[in-house]
């Protein structure tokens, strides 16, 4: 098992807590109609974004998905600017023009969330092409859901990346459902590793509810990609705790299944391991949690108090 240092363990726990509390807060803001529009929440899947992105160098790149808050936070996103963006405020990371579905922070190597399922595949693969052409040692991690496996561009990009040995790690977040449609009703091949075989690239499936397991696999495959071996596919089996979006009554899954995955909650389980292993004391865990709560409250206040964009912004940023 991957053995983090004390500081690293604290960082992993903190980031996962930030994502969870951020998402719980967004849910609350949606219920109060303070946040408008859609928001796909990452709660339950924290170990994936945190396990993978913490294994990258800060100047590596990622592409994200419609469920992008977790990736953005893990890629060193500023909580204030992310929260403000989701509320469509001037102080948001995209000046309030993108919103939840288009969170991006290019300075941090986050090439953006995407409103189109599989929309990040081309961007990630093209970024990897640029890195290869410029002989860079940086790599790209391309996040996408199980649903994105079934869109054409996914196949086109994986083939190209493998053909040209591009430095991209395809990271499939398999949370069993694409909106309401389970993988068993949508995918002819249930073992996603086999998809990689079609493009002659290696693949591994890991428990995406276990941040250390994710980190161990991610570290290995990031090195593989960085060393010029071409792309690979890492599948993280995970679960989203909320509905697909706010209005989803979740009739397509059972309460038992939800309970099963609640018990595998990556955050309390990792906290327990941290205490057992002596990486953190119980008190330290509580301290981290309290300081995250404070940071989320501050971000919320910042976002709510921030002004909307100026009307002139409607026409800016279209062309350079």
């Amino acid at each position: 098992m991957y053995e983090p240092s004390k500081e690293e363990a604290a960082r992993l726990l903190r980031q996962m807590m930030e994502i969870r509390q951020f998402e719980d807060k967004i849910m609350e803001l949606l219920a109060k109609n303070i946040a408008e529009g859609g928001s796909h929440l990452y709660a339950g899947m924290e170990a994936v974004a945190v396990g993978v992105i913490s294994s990258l160098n800060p100047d590596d790149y990622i592409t994200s998905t419609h469920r992008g808050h977790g990736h953005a936070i893990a890629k060193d996103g500023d909580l204030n600017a992310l929260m403000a963006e989701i509320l469509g405020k001037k102080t948001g990371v995209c000046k309030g023009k993108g919103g939840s579905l288009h969170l991006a922070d290019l300075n941090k190597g986050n090439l953006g969330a995407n409103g189109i399922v599989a929309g990040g595949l081309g961007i990630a693969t093209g970024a990897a092409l640029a890195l290869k052409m410029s002989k860079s040692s940086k790599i790209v991690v391309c996040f996408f859901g199980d649903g994105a496996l079934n869109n054409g561009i996914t196949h086109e990009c994986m083939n190209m990346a493998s053909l040209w040995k591009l430095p991209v790690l395809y990271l499939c977040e398999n949370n069993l459902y694409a909106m309401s449609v389970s993988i068993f009703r949508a995918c002819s091949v249930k073992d996603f590793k086999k998809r990689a075989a079609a493009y002659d690239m290696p693949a591994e499936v890991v428990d995406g509810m276990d941040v250390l397991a994710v980190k161990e696999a991610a570290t290995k495959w990031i090195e593989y990609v960085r060393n010029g071996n071409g792309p690979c596919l890492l599948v993280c089996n995970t679960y989203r705790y909320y509905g697909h979006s706010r209005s989803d009554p979740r009739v397509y899954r059972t309460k038992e299944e939800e309970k099963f995955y609640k018990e595998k909650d990556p955050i309390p389980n990792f906290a327990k391991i941290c205490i057992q292993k002596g990486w953190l004391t119980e008190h330290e865990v509580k301290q981290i949690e309290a300081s995250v709560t404070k940071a989320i409250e501050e971000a919320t206040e910042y976002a709510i108090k921030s002004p909307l964009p100026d009307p002139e912004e409607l026409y800016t940023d279209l062309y350079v």
Partner: protein
Amino acid sequence: MREITYRQALNEALDEEMARDEKVFLMGEDIAIYGGAYGVTAGLLNKYGEDRVRDTPISEAAIVGTGLGAALLGYRPVVEIMYIDFIGLCMDQLNNQVAKIRYMFGGKCTVPLTIRTEGGAGRTLGAHHSQSLEAWLMHIPGIKVVMPATPVDAKGLLKSSIRDNNPVVFIEHKMLYNTKGPVPDGEYLTPIGKAEIKRHGNDITILTYSRMLLFSLQAAEILEKEGISVEVVDLRTLLPLDRETIRKSVMKTNRVVIVEEDTKTAGAGAEIGMTVIEECFDYLDAPIKRIAGADVPMPKAPNLEKLAIPSVESIVEGIMEVMK
């Protein structure tokens, strides 16, 4: 008359056509168990079973492509593209295959395929879930493009679309699903290609469709108090346009404002405006005015989103200008 929502009206149309003709079946993302992202297909899985109400993988190109194949062999598929913003993913199927196949094959086949989708802004969903792309589709000979604004038209036009032996792209509006209106009990059809005058007037004609009909009717109400009598034409079908209704209205009022939610440049209004010029230029007493969406991707911020599309106020203002 009973009042039902636009959503219920669409659901009834699907239900009635499925009951009437076993060749009608539904395919799309999250349409079966979930009942559709906007709830239009709710209840149909239980009634007609998985064979005729199919959840698909997220494979837009294949949804339209397989719809075409099944249509060629005599089925009447009604496929759903969840948001019109995703139409790009199946545009090749639609433009190169669906629209052209009958013509290319010398008229030896028919394509009774209906593609339901929805569009428009209003929910602050940002640039990938708020577009109005009807003009892209109007540029494709071989398909029809239908955009109902009211529950009664939604039902009658969807039934006509399903029965039509040509491919029809049927574009709903996300802000209309909860709107209510009178819908007669029992069977009726609304003809494709026929506009309807939703408010009679003498001074100026608004040519509009979809959600902008509602804004236009409100604007007309306000202008009535200012002594301006506005005729509001709901085009309902954009391809083919109802040139006759347009001509008759313009010949009566001699002034035209086009109200459209899509982006202005090369938008639907450009075609509608040129149609007016071709049909009755000599009858115009003022230049045609377009009140349209801003030529930008849809921004997330709620204030910018409102600014990016026409409003009742901007319609009133625009009409005042033309009446000066």
